[in-house]
């Protein structure tokens, strides 16, 4: 009996964990105020994969997300700053995208928030009807640098593969790649491949499971994976990724394993068609060893505090292996297949109305 308990997946606890994240966050999350929308994404997408979206108040969440959209002002002077904010921290008056944008000198979108905002809306079943798609694309265009990578905000910030991924997701969801010079992005990705054939955050940087996922998933969403990498290069990538498994997965050679890499590296292997060659039992056992049996959720390591990010990626990591009771996940876009199917239908609708 003890053995079975130690490896069972405590679905109900995780549902409650995410519910709590959606309503109240403990004080130690204060630094994440500006990224609040990402926490909402982990929770909502997590509940979706758990098949438990019925516990959320979809309507008020959709309104809240729309209140984070930075719309063009009446004079259209802020088009390069459009997108979504992480939260209301900047102090703009509440408006759930029901009128032109309120002018504010320091209010601008953040590429990760635009990505997670759009994803959350899709997950909640919204048809993106109040999203100003053209404005989001303008905002995105303003973030791309000469070297092909992206800033997070138009005022400038660090630039690396994480934001390349966010940009690709936005283009993919909006079915509009005009916000990204794809060739430049492809060049950036190629320059970020390292001597051991993994991919780093940027040129000259160490291969890393997270940036490797970001690069490969972005290329898949562009439909160009096999154009950009030769079969031999893909073979080397597969090898680098396969060698990250120790029981769970590590993010880099000689680093400890961490639950979230079961998704980052697992999904990459899935996109490279070799995930079925990994050892599912060891991977699953590791993820479940980081499960918090009391409060629910998953942590990066056993006997550590769970957090929304690791809980979400732990669940997605299990979903990749076909864990019973979990929805399948779109390996590149990182939302449930159910949500990506409704995205596809939305695209068909948009295309029909264009012709």
């Amino acid at each position, binding site marked *: 009996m003890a053995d079975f308990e130690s490896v069972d997946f405590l679905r109900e606890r995780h549902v409650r964990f995410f519910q709590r994240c959606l309503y109240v966050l403990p004080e130690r999350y204060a630094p994440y105020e500006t990224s609040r929308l990402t926490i909402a994404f982990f929770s909502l997408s997590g509940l979706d994969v758990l098949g438990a979206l019925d516990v959320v108040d979809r309507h008020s969440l959709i309104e809240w997300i729309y209140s984070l959209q930075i719309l063009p002002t009446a004079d259209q002077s802020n088009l390069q700053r459009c997108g979504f904010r992480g939260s209301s921290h900047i102090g703009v008056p509440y408006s759930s995208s029901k009128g032109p944008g309120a002018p504010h000198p320091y209010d601008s979108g*953040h590429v990760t928030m635009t990505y997670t905002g759009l994803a959350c809306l899709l997950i909640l079943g919204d048809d993106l009807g109040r999203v100003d798609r053209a404005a989001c694309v303008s905002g995105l265009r303003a973030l791309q640098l000469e070297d092909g990578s992206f800033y997070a905000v138009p005022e400038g910030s660090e630039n690396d593969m994480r934001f390349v991924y966010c940009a690709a997701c936005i283009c993919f969801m909006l079915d509009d790649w005009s916000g990204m010079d794809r060739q430049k992005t492809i*060049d950036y990705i190629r320059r970020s491949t390292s001597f051991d054939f993994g991919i780093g955050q*940027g040129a*000259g940087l160490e291969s890393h499971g997270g940036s490797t996922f970001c690069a490969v998933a972005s290329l898949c969403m562009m439909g160009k994976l096999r154009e950009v990498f030769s079969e031999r290069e893909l073979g080397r990538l597969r090898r680098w990724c396969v060698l990250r498994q120790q*029981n769970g997965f590590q993010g880099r050679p000689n680093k400890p394993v961490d639950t979230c890499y079961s998704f980052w590296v697992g999904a990459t292997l899935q996109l490279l068609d070799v995930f079925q060659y990994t050892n599912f039992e*060891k991977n699953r056992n590791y993820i479940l060893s980081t499960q918090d049996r009391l409060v629910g959720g998953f942590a990066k390591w056993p006997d550590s505090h769970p957090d929304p990010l690791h809980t979400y990626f732990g669940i997605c990591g299990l979903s990749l292996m076909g864990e019973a009771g979990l929805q399948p996940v779109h390996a590149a876009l990182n939302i449930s297949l159910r949500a990506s199917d409704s995205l596809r239908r939305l695209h068909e609708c948009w295309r029909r109305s264009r012709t």
Partner: protein
Amino acid sequence: MHGRVKVKTTAQQEEEKRKEREKKLKAFVCARDSVLKKRSAGEHDEEALDLTQQLLSSNPDFATLWNYRREVLLHLETLREKDEVQKLYESELHFIEACLKVNPKSYGCWHHRSWVNTRLPQPDWTRELGLCDRCLSLDERNFHCWDYRRLVVKESGVSVEQELQFTDRLIGSNFSNYSSWHYRSTLLPQLRPQPVLDSAHNTSPSPSASPQSHSHRVCEEQLLKEYELAHNAFFTDPNDQSAWFYYRWLLGRAEREEMISCVYVSREGERVSVAFSKPVHAGSVGLMLVLDGQPQQVQWRNAHPRLRHSPVWLCDLPAGSISDTSNEHNLTIHWTDKHTHRDCALYTGCAESWCRDSATDQELFRSELSVEKSSVLQAELQSCNQLLDLEPQNKWCLLTIILLMRALDPLGHEKETLTHFQTLKEVDAMRSSYYSDLCSKFLIENTILKMEYAEVRVFSLSNKKLTTLCHLDQLLLVTHINLSSNQLQHLPPQFSMLQCLEVLEADDNAIESLEGLYHLPKLEEVSLKNNKICKVSDLETLATCTKLTRLDLRGNPVHKTDDLESELSLILPLVTALSL
């Protein structure tokens, strides 16, 4: 989000903590509101610096605040003398260092520090290098720090040699310093880059060059020194992967030249099949077909609609242009983008013709490694074998030996390679299915080499535990293929590249999908006994193979279909010999 270990507390401790948190929260909200108010009011002053400092100390990823702080600093610059500006930014550096102590992996902090150094009238790069050294001694894998270090090195003109010595020290004290090996891989090519030549004989590297391409390789002399460094590392600790990855990179080599690898012409179909050394889009690479000196207007198509980007392309010649066997014809395919071409002569009395570089000539399966210096590779193989004697269970050693043997003599070392694969699957059982897949690939490669050596067009790989097919673009000329008794599940779209295939035997597999049996113009006989074909619709693609007359489907689940024979005669009317 960083791992925090659980700690038990008493009720009283909990209450004290709660009160403290409330206090902190109040202070935070107050400060934040003041900052934003000030910024809206355009106030760029000392107080703004104080307020943002308070907030950023606990919340270093608040990007807007860093941006505001930068605005304030820029404004203050305009009001101060040069030496005061120096002091202003130096104290800024102290502040950032304090933030880094709290969170050494904050993107915002490192980014801000780079910015500060661009504003300092007199940057102190020695101090910055010192900061990097200290940070790395605490966490040698902190890639933010490594990235910052590269910037410092670039701005301050620290020589590549000095940085190499730095990596020497780090690697010397701890062979398992992956970041140092990585850094070394980026420094080495800068030291003594190999001269770059591409097929157009330009000397500038292409903008999309990756670290594996020519412009990032190391010259041979330095290479030998590096081999020694790697040997020292993996002989000392054979289980640490850093040195093995580095070693593999050292042994590696650029991608082979792009070319047309095969042209095949058939009189009967008046069809030309072209195989390229890499997948292309025929429409966009400047392909030109010249027949007997006359350029021809042809439509290039791929072998299967799902293969938009493919190594094999087909076209049809104008009717009657080559059908008369009493005529000799000369065909040339020009790949104008790559300044290369291939000729093919179709002689009198011959129904078909081809021109091809063998896989051996193309160094197809050997070009992973530098073949010009096979003496060096031989020496490396010896070293690795010595290590294997001491450490027979070491997976890195086994993998490297397999790689070296394939580079030197894939057919000669076949037996040993298979034995090593078996050992690998035992010592690294977690990855045994991956190794099986790799082994399947190597067996396919060896079979292609044997086929060419024997100068036959028959490809036989039965009973080899094959799970996937690959290198199908190398099988353009094959007439007979035997894949029986394996573990294949599909005949993928790439299978349609086997344009000369006449007989397919694939009994005793787990095949469900026949997508790749699509418009194979010469296919006459297909045997698929004991597979997993379930629905009649799975067989519809066979109707595109107009010469197909013999089909064996015994032992497939499709038997459960009612009226199977009549359904099949409807969709495959040309099949006369059907075995069910």
